[in-house]
Structure formats: structure tokens, C-alpha cells
């Protein structure tokens, strides 16, 4: 007699199991198929092409009504199963019908996870799961705004599909980069760039706070920083949960999913389960390949044949409308793991292989996934790659070939890109000079002037020579930023400007970084170069700054911090001193010290107390002295003509004016100034980065002094007649240094490289350039003259830095 099989859920896994069963033995079972959706099995993976309009629903139907009829499957679509009586082996339908079974198969799939934030139950808040959701999204057009929460595969497919229909789409993602489970940061950056090019707005590291509604319908998503993103529809695509409710209700063993063994049997030997609702050996499943394997095993089990479900290495090859992505295996960094990274900035290609013990254990690819199967095969087979290591990353076609050209970044520059900023010489002009016969660096300098002034572009000029002349030209030796790149500091700075690079991942991709995320050496340097090149744009990445600049205080050897409020020109008041004394009492400051820069240092402050002490000091009108910054420190002064019988000018007044203009600026290294009222030099102007000595006729401006590891006397840059000129020249010099010096070089090191004569040419001999430098400095200052203490003490910026995540010290030790 034919046995009865009841299947709960008409999805892709049960659909495949049914096909396999009917193919092997069409008469083995009398099948009844329940489905909560009012339709049969369709290819859920293809909902995205339906959304984008590339396919219709009819094209993605796997099993038509005719198919079910021809195969004798009794369909109960649009009906839920209310209960199962395992003792009597009957299924109870919603309408009360009782259907006996010999075998029962669960294919209840998964439920989309809805974040239970305020407003999640408003009209117009949907998941992306079935045809109904898809149809709602398809009803949007270019007059609508939609917010998608979730930057994983599903969310991005929803976003791309709607963007293709002209909808104004914003993706809100809680993590630092898109698809973080499949992609590393660099590939995530490329994906984001491609989506932004399609008109999609992407907000990463954005925490949703609540959904705002109007008359019961969604109006906007509010982020925890207060931003409101207006929307007509809000799609939550933040993950799925196995749907285990019914299985749990009837007492089957359930964990994250319905527990199954290698034969897809649940804890009840007459009940099987397949698909997204199951948990096998601790794992749950979302991709289609393992579901099809499960279906095959389940069909065999139903036919009393032996088969075993084995979990395999999973790869993801994805196509988010036009973005080629591939990820497989394990691509986290770790000990004994090595990376091979290949980037082709011109084509937007990124490839990364993770190696361990001469085997590939993970791979991420973006832009060109043509060789992904070859790599995936080697991951699965554990192929030993020792022999092809050098050329491995280029794929199967290149085995035995030559490695990648290190000149790629410069090769990709357009002809009109400026290489030599001093003389305004473009790449095309240099190539022309080389083609006209200049075949050495000196010849190029002589005929095109490129590289003949400050010399910081010489590395790039050499690369243009190398590109144009090929092997005939021998590249000079150079010092690279760190082991993550083949470029020098000067080259990186110039390429950031020439290629308009505006984030660290972007720099690393476009300049062919050979580590995936940089290191503690290159990241702070890149961050400074971006901050300097693009004032007013949100380029600053606090996580790439050294701790002192991140928390705006100086870390001490015991992990406490020191706090130095700014005292312009070294001038203070009784009220400020009282506030400092009160703060020192209140926070039990162990040491109060007068600094060499004419300020007061409060040492030994606990990190958690920083915002509170800043608040108190702020109440008295004081702000951060930035005594921790690679940036403007102090302007030391003597009392000058106000009090001193030798004083020639108002040195304190000038010091205060300069410090008022310059505070807050970041630079390659710290920058210290002094103004002395007469040549007796009580403010020690002659050993400062910039020192001013007042004389009867005006102001001598000295630069490049040092009194630290090196001892150097500052040299005269220029003598000017008025206070305003002294201020302008100071700003121009600081800006020239800010734009030109390599990270962690004090001005004296930079001057040793470019020459004081060149500095004079730029500032003294060229008044127009001097004015332009000062103008650029002042433009930049409008964005950086923000007191970081007030931001943290009063506006809660970076609060996570100052409070522990959890404190168990007060829990009684039992």
C-alpha cells in the first residue's frame, strides 16, 4: 500500500526533495503539500531580478499548478498546519482537517528578523522575504524614498533593485563596511563605491534608533545621532531565523534550528526536516547549495536508501547588479597566516588570498572573479601552493609568468595630473620632455623643471621615467612609508591630491597597498595627509590616530593622562588659576607642573575623569591646550614692551594673536613657537620651529630650530616691518610645512630636505604664493578650530572612549 507523506512548506529545499523522490519512485508516496504562502514553489533567489524588472514572477516559478497535478501532489496552498499529533501520526490543518501520515517532512524555512525597535509595527515597514514584499518594493518609483536597514547581500539586492527603478534608496548598515561577513574592508569599499555610483546612499556604522510614523504609516528612520532619513517604505534585511515554532510546539528537539542527523531525520524517526529551518551539527543554512544536498539525502531516506549529508566549504559568488564579488573560506587575519593582495586601481580590481601552511584557506575577490573557481578548488582540495606562490594571485593563466608592475598607480594617472606642484608640471609635460630626449632625472629637471624645486616629487618623476623608458631607466632607491606599500611619503601625499582620494580604504585600494588594512605606521600618516588635503570634508578617522590625539590628553606610563589647558601666549588670570586649583583638588590630581611652554600641566588624571575635568575647566573659559597633538602646541612669549625696559615690541600681544589664529591645526609633527621682545631672547625663539625676535625696526622670523634629540639654531627666514606681516608669514610657513613635510618630520628635518632657499623662494620671493598659503591655512582653520574638550565634555563625542563597557569589580566575589 502507498504510504502517506505530508510536507509542510513549499520552498526550494522541499521542492528539490520532492523532485528527487518522484524521479526515483513516483509511486512510493501519496504526497500532500502545505504552504502558508498562497502559491507553490518558486525560486526565491530570483526575487531580486523580479524586483529590478529583469524577470517576471512567471519566469521564476519552479513548479506550476500543472506540475503538481501531473505528479499527483495534493496542494493545500495558503493553509497553515495548526498542529501535529505525533502519537496518532496525524497533521491537523488550520480548518480542523485531520490528515494521517506515515512520514512528515518539515520545510518551514526561516523568518526574517525584525529589530524590535520603536515603530517596527508601522505600516510600510517590511522584510524582504517573499513575493508580497517584492511587490510592495516594485510599487515604488522615482517619486519615492526608501530606507533599507542592513548592508548584507539581501539588503543590497533590495536597494539595487529599487535604485534600478529610480527610487531614492538609502542603505543603513550597523557595521563598518558592507557585507562584512563575506568581504573584507577593502572589497567593502569598492562595493560601496559601485553602489554610490548607482545613486544609492550608503551609511555605514549607523545605528538605528527608532522608526517614526504618521497616521500609523512609516515616515522616517531616526538614527541614534538624531539624523532623520525620510522614507515611504522601510525594508529590514538584517538576517533570518529558522522557523522552528511548530516543531518546538510538538516537542521535537530544537536548538537554533530543528535538530537533524546525517539522514535529515529529526528526533522523531518518522519526521524529516530540510532547508533553512534545520540545524545540523551546530550549523544553520542560508545558501542554496547545502539545501539541495539536504534535499537529495532526505529523498533517499524516504526511500529507505542510505545517504549522508556532509557540510562542505561554502563559497559565495555574488552579483549585486553589476558588482562582481566572490568570497570563500576564512579570510580573517591571524597568526601564521599570510596575505597575498593584488589591486588594480585602474580596473577597480581587488583580490586577496589568505594562506596558512602553504595552502589557501580563504579568498576575497572584487571586480574580476573570473578565476574564482580555480581558487575555490584549491581551498577545497587543500592544494599545496608553495611552487606557484610568486604568481599565484594572478590566476591560472599566469603561472610561470612575471609579477605585477609596481608602477601601476602612476601609470593610471591621466596626462593632465599635476606631478610637480612647485612648478605646475603635469605628467604629460614630463612625458613630452622624456620623449624629447631627457632620459635621466637631471635631464628632466633641467628641461621640464619638474622636481627642480622642493624635490618632493622626484620619486614620481622617476616613476614616469621608468614608465616611459622601460628597462633603460634604473629606478633610484627610496624609503617607503612602511612595509604595506612601495611608495614613499612624498609620492603618497601627491597621489592623494592628484587622484582626489578621500578615505584610508580608498587610498589603500587606489595606491595598491599590499596589506589589507594597513598598520600602525601607515594609518596615522595617511590620516594626517587626508586631514591636511581635504579640510572641511569628513575624512578624519580617529581610529587611525595615536591614543593621545584620540582622547585629547597625554597618556602617562601608568595609563593615566595629563591635562594641559591652553593659555594663549602664556598669559593667565587669577580666575583661571583658581579654576585649575579647584579642579586639581576635586580630581585629586597628584602632580601640578609648570611646563616649558608656559602652561600648567595636571598629571595623573584617570581616563574616566577626563570629560568631567574638561567640563570644569571649560566652565572657567579654558579649552584644550593640545599638548598631545601633532599640531600647534604653544606660543611662548616674554613680557615685551608692556613691562620690560628692554622690550621693543608687544611680544606677548603678538604671541596671543598668533596662537589665536593657529590653535587647533594638525601638522606632520608638533609645532612650537616663541616670540621674544628683544634680541636678549628670553622666550628662546632661536630653538623653536618658528621663532620671532622683535627688534626696533620690526620682526625677525626664524625657522627650523630644534632643542630636542637634535640641537639646531633657527635660521632667519625674513624680517618684516609690521605685526600683521609677521602673522601672515607665520601662517604661510606653517601651511607650507603642513602641505609638504612627511609625517613625523619636524620642520628642521623638512627644511634639511627641501632647503631653506626653496622655502624663501616660496614665501619671501613670491608674495602672491605667500598670501595664497596663508589663505589656505585660514580656510582650513575654520574647520579645525573646534575645542575637542568641549565636544567631549558637553556633546558626548566619543563617549565610548571614557567609560568601561562593563564593570564587574563591584560584583561580590562569591
Amino acid at each position, binding site marked *: 500500500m502507498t504510504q502517506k507523506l505530508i510536507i509542510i512548506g513549499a520552498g526550494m529545499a522541499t521542492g528539490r526533495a520532492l523532485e528527487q523522490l518522484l524521479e526515483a519512485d513516483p509511486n512510493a508516496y501519496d504526497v500532500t503539500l502545505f504552504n502558508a504562502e498562497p502559491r507553490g514553489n518558486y525560486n526565491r533567489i530570483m526575487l531580486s531580478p523580479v524586483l529590478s524588472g529583469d524577470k517576471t514572477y512567471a519566469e521564476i516559478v519552479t513548479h506550476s499548478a500543472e506540475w503538481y497535478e501531473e505528479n499527483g501532489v495534493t496542494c493545500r496552498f495558503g493553509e497553515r498546519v495548526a498542529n501535529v499529533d505525533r502519537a496518532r501520526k496525524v497533521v491537523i490543518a488550520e480548518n480542523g482537517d485531520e490528515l494521517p501520515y506515515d512520514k512528515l517532512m518539515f520545510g518551514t524555512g526561516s523568518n526574517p528578523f525584525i529589530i524590535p525597535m520603536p515603530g517596527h509595527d508601522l505600516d510600510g515597514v517590511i522584510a524582504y522575504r517573499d513575493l508580497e514584499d517584492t511587490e510592495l518594493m516594485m510599487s515604488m518609483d522615482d517619486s519615492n524614498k526608501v530606507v533599507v536597514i542592513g548592508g548584507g547581500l539581501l539588503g543590497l539586492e533590495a536597494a539595487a533593485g529599487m535604485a534600478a527603478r529610480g527610487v531614492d534608496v538609502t542603505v543603513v548598515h550597523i557595521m563598518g*563596511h558592507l557585507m562584512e561577513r563575506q568581504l573584507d574592508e577593502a572589497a567593502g569599499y569598492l562595493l560601496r563605491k559601485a553602489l554610490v555610483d548607482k545613486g544609492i546612499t550608503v551609511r555605514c556604522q549607523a545605528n538605528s534608533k527608532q522608526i517614526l510614523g504618521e497616521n500609523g504609516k512609516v515616515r522616517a528612520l531616526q538614527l541614534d545621532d538624531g539624523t532623520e532619513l525620510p522614507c515611504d517604505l522601510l525594508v529590514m534585511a538584517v538576517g533570518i531565523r529558522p522557523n522552528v515554532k511548530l516543531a518546538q510546539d510538538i516537542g521535537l528537539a530544537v536548538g537554533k534550528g530543528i535538530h537533524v542527523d546525517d539522514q535529515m531525520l529529526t528526533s522523531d524517526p518518522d519526521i524529516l526536516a530540510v532547508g533553512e529551518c534545520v540545524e545540523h551539527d551546530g550549523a544553520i543554512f542560508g545558501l542554496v547549495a547545502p539545501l539541495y544536498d539536504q534535499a537529495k539525502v532526505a529523498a533517499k531516506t524516504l526511500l529507505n536508501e542510505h545517504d549522508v549529508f556532509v557540510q562542505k566549504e561554502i563559497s559565495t559568488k555574488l552579483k549585486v547588479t553589476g558588482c562582481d564579488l566572490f568570497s570563500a573560506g576564512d579570510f580573517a587575519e591571524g*597568526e601564521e597566516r599570510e596575505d597575498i593582495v593584488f589591486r588594480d586601481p585602474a580596473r577597480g580590481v581587488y583580490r586577496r588570498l589568505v594562506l596558512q601552511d602553504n595552502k589557501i584557506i580563504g579568498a576575497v575577490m572584487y571586480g574580476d572573479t573570473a578565476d574564482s573557481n580555480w581558487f575555490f578548488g584549491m581551498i577545497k582540495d587543500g592544494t599545496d601552493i608553495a611552487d606557484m606562490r610568486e604568481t599565484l594571485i594572478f590566476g591560472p593563466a599566469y603561472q610561470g609568468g612575471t609579477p605585477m608592475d609596481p608602477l601601476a598607480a602612476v601609470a593610471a594617472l591621466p596626462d593632465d595630473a599635476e606631478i610637480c606642484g612647485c612648478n605646475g608640471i603635469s605628467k604629460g609635460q614630463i612625458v613630452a620632455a622624456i620623449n624629447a630626449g631627457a632620459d635621466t632625472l637631471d635631464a628632466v629637471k633641467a628641461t621640464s623643471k619638474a622636481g627642480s624645486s622642493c624635490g618632493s616629487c622626484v620619486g614620481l618623476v622617476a616613476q614616469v621615467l621608468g614608465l616611459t623608458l622601460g628597462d633603460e631607466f634604473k629606478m633610484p632607491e627610496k624609503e617607503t612609508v612602511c612595509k604595506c606599500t612601495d611608495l614613499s611619503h612624498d609620492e603618497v601625499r601627491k597621489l592623494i591630491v592628484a587622484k582626489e582620494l578621500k578615505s584610508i580604504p580608498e587610498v589603500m585600494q587606489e595606491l595598491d597597498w599590499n596589506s589589507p588594512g594597513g598598520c600602525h605606521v601607515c594609518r596615522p600618516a595617511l590620516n594626517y595627509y587626508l586631514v591636511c588635503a581635504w579640510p572641511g570634508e569628513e575624512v578624519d578617522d580617529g581610529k587611525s590616530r595615536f591614543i593621545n590625539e584620540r582622547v585629547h590628553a597625554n597618556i602617562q606610563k601608568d595609563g593615566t593622562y595629563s591635562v594641559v589647558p591652553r593659555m594663549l601666549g602664556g598669559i593667565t588670570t587669577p580666575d583661571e588659576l583658581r579654576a585649575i586649583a579647584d579642579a586639581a583638588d576635586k580630581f585629586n590630581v597628584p602632580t601640578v607642573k609648570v611646563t616649558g611652554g608656559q602652561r600648567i600641566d595636571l598629571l595623573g588624571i584617570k581616563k574616566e575623569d577626563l570629560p568631567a575635568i574638561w567640563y570644569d575647566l571649560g566652565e572657567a573659559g579654558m579649552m584644550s591646550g593640545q599638548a598631545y597633538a601633532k599640531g600647534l602646541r604653544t606660543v611662548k612669549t616674554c613680557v615685551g614692551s608692556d613691562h620690560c625696559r628692554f622690550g621693543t615690541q608687544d611680544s606677548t600681544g603678538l604671541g596671543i594673536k598668533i596662537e589665536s589664529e593657529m590653535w587647533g591645526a594638525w601638522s606632520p609633527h608638533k609645532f612650537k613657537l616663541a616670540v621674544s621682545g628683544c634680541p636678549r631672547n628670553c622666550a628662546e625663539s632661536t630653538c623653536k620651529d618658528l621663532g620671532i625676535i622683535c627688534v626696533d625696526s620690526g620682526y625677525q622670523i626664524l625657522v627650523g630650530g630644534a632643542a630636542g634629540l637634535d640641537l639646531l639654531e633657527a635660521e632667519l627666514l625674513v624680517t618684516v616691518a609690521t605685526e600683521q606681516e609677521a602673522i601672515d608669514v607665520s601662517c604661510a610657513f606653517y601651511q607650507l610645512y603642513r602641505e609638504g613635510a612627511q609625517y613625523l618630520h619636524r620642520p628642521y628635518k623638512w627644511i634639511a630636505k627641501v632647503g631653506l632657499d626653496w622655502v624663501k623662494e616660496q614665501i619671501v620671493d613670491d608674495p602672491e604664493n605667500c598670501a595664497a598659503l596663508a589663505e589656505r591655512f585660514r580656510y582650513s582653520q575654520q574647520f579645525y578650530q573646534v575645542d575637542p574638550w568641549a565636544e567631549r565634555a558637553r556633546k558626548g563625542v566619543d563617549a565610548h572612549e571614557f567609560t568601561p563597557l562593563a564593570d564587574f569589580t563591584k560584583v561580590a566575589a562569591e
Partner: protein
Amino acid sequence: MTDFIDIGSITDIPVQGARLVRTAQGDIAVFRTASGNFYAVDEYFEDKAGPLSNGIQHGEMVTDPMRNWVFDLATGEAQGADEGRVTTYELKVEDGRILLSSAALVNQVAAE
């Protein structure tokens, strides 16, 4: 079986950042990397390195702010020329919550 204690949400730690967990036995730094991994290690390595939660986090590593020791966060092993291993603690993420092994809070008590 290991017990785990909920110490906060994954969003409480910025990407490439760290937060402190204070325990009676000392501070523990919990890191979140760009690839979305979370790690817990001692804030200090003997008297040689730390406070590590103040370091620059890169790759699956952290660079000590004081003397530039670089530690692998997964194993605690010092990289390069330095030798040593900072203590690591078991940690897992479930439903957006960070769960720290309760051993991190008690194991040193038992040793006394």
C-alpha cells in the same frame, strides 16, 4: 561547559576600536576589528606593554601605545622581535550581544 556573561552590544564598540571590561582581577580590553571579529585580552602584558585598549587596532592585531609591541589578538602572541603572550579570553557574539567567558572573571581567584 563554559558560562558566558553578556557584556554589551556589538555596537557599543566602534569598528577598529576597543572598550574596557573591569574585573576584580584586572582590566580586560575587548576589541572589534574591521572584519567584524571580537577579541578579549588583558589590558596589560606584565609590566611590558599596555594599556592595550588605547592602542591602534589593525588587521587582527593591536599595537601597544607605549612601546609599540604588536600582539595578535586571537592568540595573544607578540609579533616581530618581541616575545611573550598576553592572556586572551574566550568570547562569542550572539544576536548582536557580546558574551565573555565567565572564566575571565573568576579563574585567577581560584589560583590564589
